[in-house]
């Protein structure tokens, strides 16, 4: 049984597996999003306070949750690569970053679009939104650092250290921003503290979260495949794969 774990720890074996998994999770993502959006738009009732504008929640909250989740997963793979010096772990971490950054941006954009009708401004220094903004900078910093380093091994390790330092700081950042926000009397309405969410609203949101999660897995695996092809371009298996496509 223990042999199976390490069978896929080389790019050569993981590459085809990643491809199959990406298809499976992509299909699951489509399914989940279809169900979630159906629930969100045709089953869930209109909100008493916010009218139809609350329907943004079906993207905003899943995107925000996934952005934070992916950062932790990225730090996990990065730490694994740093500890065990495995190439594939570093590639996974690098593959996660752009998708994580994308989710963060979506969370910010939809949060802003939700804030405008509810609070009247395009941007509020709400604790969560501000923390999301800082998370975006953390992602972008990771990507910038890796882009600036030519040697892939050094890029992996440097990015890994940065991700680990970042993941330790994320709770500190969140709490300090929350404290800062309450002290400066931010918006009195909390974004996700809808008093009692109708069951259908909650269900729609949770299913959409799964949809985003599966999409995230699929996108990351696809990007990991690209990274594997780029880094291992001189290897036999990559050559065979490239010729096989022709």
């Amino acid at each position: 049984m223990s042999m199976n774990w390490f069978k896929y720890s080389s790019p050569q074996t993981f590459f085809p597996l990643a491809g199959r998994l990406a298809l499976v999770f992509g299909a699951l993502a489509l399914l989940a999003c279809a169900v979630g959006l159906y629930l969100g738009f045709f089953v869930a009732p209109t909100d008493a306070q916010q009218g139809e504008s609350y329907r943004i929640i079906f993207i905003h909250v899943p995107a925000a949750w996934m952005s934070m989740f992916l950062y932790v997963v990225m730090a996990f793979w990065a730490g694994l690569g740093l500890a065990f010096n495995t190439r594939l772990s570093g590639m996974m971490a690098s593959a996660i970053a752009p998708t994580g950054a994308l989710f963060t941006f979506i969370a910010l954009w939809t949060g802003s679009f939700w804030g405008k009708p509810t609070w009247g401004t395009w941007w509020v220094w709400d604790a969560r939104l501000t923390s999301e903004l800082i998370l975006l900078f953390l992602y972008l910093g990771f990507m910038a650092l890796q882009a600036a380093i030519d040697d892939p091994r050094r890029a992996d390790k440097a990015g890994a250290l940065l991700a680990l330092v970042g993941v330790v700081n994320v709770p500190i950042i969140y709490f300090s921003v929350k404290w800062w926000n309450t002290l400066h009397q931010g918006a009195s309405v909390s974004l996700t503290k809808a008093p009692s969410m109708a069951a259908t609203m909650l269900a729609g949101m949770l299913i959409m979260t799964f949809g985003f999660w599966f999409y995230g897995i699929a996108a990351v695996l696809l990007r990991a495949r690209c990274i594997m092809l780029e880094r291992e371009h001189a290897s036999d298996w990559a050559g065979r794969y490239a010729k096989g496509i022709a």
Partner: protein
Amino acid sequence: MGGYAVYVWGSYVVTFVLIVAELLVLARRKRNAVELIR
């Protein structure tokens, strides 16, 4: 959408566009990588 159409669709459309863009970028990246190998 009860008057909030701009905001709701603005959010959904942008999200959809970004996700499609990400997939297209990935497809192109893979094509380039394969080209590079050959």
